């Protein structure tokens, strides 16, 4: 498969013009072609959620999408979450609640939660658990991730940042 497609990935507001094979996954394109390695790959078969990013306003598993499908769409990854030195409330909360250990799953959980909370910062506890059960973490036992997202939701509701 040598035929390549010229596409533009708009990552966190910056255009990346790249040329990829049609079968290249979005996760690989973001990591290898655009050099943004914050999006992690834990399974490449759509179960772990480490590769979760936001494409055109939807949370997606970037290992299950082809890069060509994201051509021209607005893509948000973990690298775009902080505003310069200012961490996003979710990032702050993950640190404050010790919601990460090795940090490998963290970008996926952050983007998953970001998408959900931006839609509905009033997410109930049960809905939140359902949401967070989409992704895997092997280190934390989840409890602190749940607390962190709840904490961040409160901050985001209050509209302190963004």
């Amino acid at each position, binding site marked *: *498969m040598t035929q390549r497609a010229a596409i533009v990935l708009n990552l966190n507001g910056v255009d990346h013009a790249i040329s990829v*094979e049609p*079968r*290249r996954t979005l996760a*690989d394109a973001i*990591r*290898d072609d655009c050099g*943004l*390695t*914050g*999006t*992690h*790959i*834990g*399974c*490449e*078969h759509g*179960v*772990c959620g*480490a590769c979760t990013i936001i494409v055109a306003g939807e949370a997606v598993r970037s290992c299950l999408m082809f890069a060509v499908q994201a051509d021209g769409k607005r893509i948000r*990854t*973990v*690298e775009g*979450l*902080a505003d310069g030195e200012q*961490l996003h409330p979710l*990032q702050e909360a*993950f*640190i*404050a609640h*010790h919601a*990460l*250990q*090795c*940090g*490998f*799953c*963290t*970008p996926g959980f*952050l983007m998953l939660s970001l998408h959900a909370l931006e839609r509905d910062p009033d997410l109930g506890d049960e809905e939140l*658990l*359902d949401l*967070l*059960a*989409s*992704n*895997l*973490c*092997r*280190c*934390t*036992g*989840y*409890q*602190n*991730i*749940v607390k962190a997202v709840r904490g961040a939701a409160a901050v985001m509701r209050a509209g302190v940042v963004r």
Partner: protein
Amino acid sequence: MSAGVAVPTGWVGRSLRRIEDPALVRGSGRFTSDLPAALWVRFVRSPVAAGKILRIVAPPGARMVTAADLAAVGPIRPMLHKFNYVPIEQRVLAADVVRFVGEPLAAILAPSREEAEDLAERVHVEIDATSAIVDAYAAIAAGAPLVHAQARGNIIVDARVATPGFAAASAAARHRVRLRIRSRRQNALPLEPRAAHAAWDPVERRIILHCSTQMPHLMRTIIAQLIGMAESGLRVIAPDVGGGFGQKMSLAAEYVVVAWLARSLRTSVAWTEDRRENLIASFHARDQHIDLEGMFDDAARLVALRADVLANVGAYACYPTTGAVEALMAMAEMPGPYDVRDYSCTARGVLTHTCPMAPYRGVSRPVITFAIERLMDKAAAAFGIDAPTIRRRNLVRAFPYTTATGLVFDEASYVETMDAAVLAADLPAFRARQAAARLQGRYLGIGMSTFCERTGYGTPAFAARGMDVTPGWETVVLGIDPSGCVEARIGSSPHGQGLRTALSQIIADELGVSPERVTVVHGDTDRTPYGWGTFASRSLVIAGGAALMAARKVRAKLIGMAADLLEAAPEDIVLGDGVARVSGTDRAMAIDALARAAYHQTHRFKGTFAPGLAESATYDPPGTFSNACHIALVEVDIETGRVGIEKFLVAEDAGRLINPMIVDGQIHGGVAQGIANALYEEVIYDAGGDILTATLADYLPPTAREIPPIALHHRETLTEASLTKAKGVGEGGTIGAPAALINAVNDALAPFGVSIDEIPATPQRIRDALRAAAAAKA
């Protein structure tokens, strides 16, 4: 001895935010697979469990490497000098025969991962399949095919111990309780798969190997040795490591191939395993059968214990611990926290045509704790007493205590910790609720486990296991630079535990500076002193002890210099808040200024002090036992066999808590893996040795839905066996949870007269047991 938890006076004892986190939450962590490479490797793996390799043919134009190309690369051959260990060899790429599904046969190289994968799929592999053995009992049956010709009966380790009084004590005992337990196979499953990236450095003319490992220094030693090169020609870097849990402690054959390729081709070569490879061909754990018999006196006191352990070690022995590690740990620690003087055990490690076994968080102890805690519950039922009572009668109370196998338990709180847990669980209230629920056809259960965990042990413990390589000590080199910044270079190598933060707290207290001034450098063989890494709940205890020792030396020098320059007696110098002051006066000097003087104004000391401010210290401790009690409250749905966890409670004594937040995180994560062990995760082979659980949708790691909130209670017994008074806490959560959960499941199902003695207790197994019980009654 102290009860409860101390109020912190310095940095130690505070839940400081982790130094590690800001980079990780920004996505700027550096993991091995983030590095670009000129060439990517895809391994061609054996599709069959056993057989003779006839041909491996690469597609036209492909660059392929097989065992023939690696003739000069030595085999992986870890060694034990005890327990009838039979050394076996693993070629890094299989030559002649294959011994498990997934064993690497060849490496394909291409400029991208996709191309390498395409080519690897087109490699033509011809293997003359032979019959495979998967089960440990089948492997020791007469006439079973041999996995390695030199291991007769497929046994690679055959260990026996018996106390002199065992036979008499056992014969005289009036009550006997026996059970057989089975632990199915698991995968440690770090979320970051294994990865290696080796690059030829044309300037220094050596290889820089980044890899996801828990033991960078030992990896350098063994990889250089296998390839046949000087260690100085290899620099190993463990950058951010996305979890390991033991799986990344053992040498990956693939890493050797990647390093060899970079050296041979003078370029950069990378490999990142995919999840399927990780599930089928990294390392497995916990595949054990235990036959356990307890002999009790009339007062329900355990007077003798007999165990027979059969551990399935897979097709090869992992380096450095060998596949014997589970069997030997089971033998040494089976009696648990109980005062039993007579003990007899046989422990065998058995080869099969399955993925090799390696240490996984808890190593054997989740299984043996499950065994002895089931035994205790069964004995309690036989004596008509409750679970806490039988344990209270048997727990060790006086310390130091030497076990029947010669382990020395340091100061701890076995009874007190259990009592705290039992109190918190409110047993009487639960029993009332349970009775009411049963009337409505709902089955609630409570279960507990008490255990102690050997942590932070030094070289003698590894030597006792007969290991050729005896890890144990750690070295820390601690310096203050001329600007006053503190740098600790450690041989240990964390993989997500927040060790940098915890060590900075210990060092900051000793030097009177803020932890922000302390940088901890790890995971680079060029920048750190030789050391071992993270495993066996040791890093904080041992690297922490070494850091404390080194900091004390630096502190002594700082005080001496301050006394000199401030013209005071050293006893009068107090370090704190970045300043050395003469107590009771306003004479003071910033530590920064002292540091500058130590390098740039050495003339001021008139030769009393050698220039510079750097010291090194090595700690090789005896080992210290943490202890805990886990209590699980569950509800079993008898229609579906589903187990719901209502509540999970842990009372833990891990000595001094350096950073309580990190300790809690270790327990949460450990318990989650224990829950997985008890109820969900299982590597399944079919009878022919093919593996059926090759995706995360088949192998079932729990999600946030399955892991309940975990209530924690701490005690701090301050032990003399650890310099910092901290005990290890990395594995305890995983060790205690399966036993507590399965005891709870059995308590819930007590009305049906079933006994679930196999983990994971999946819905299918629970339903099978209920059906069998119903059929027996009918």
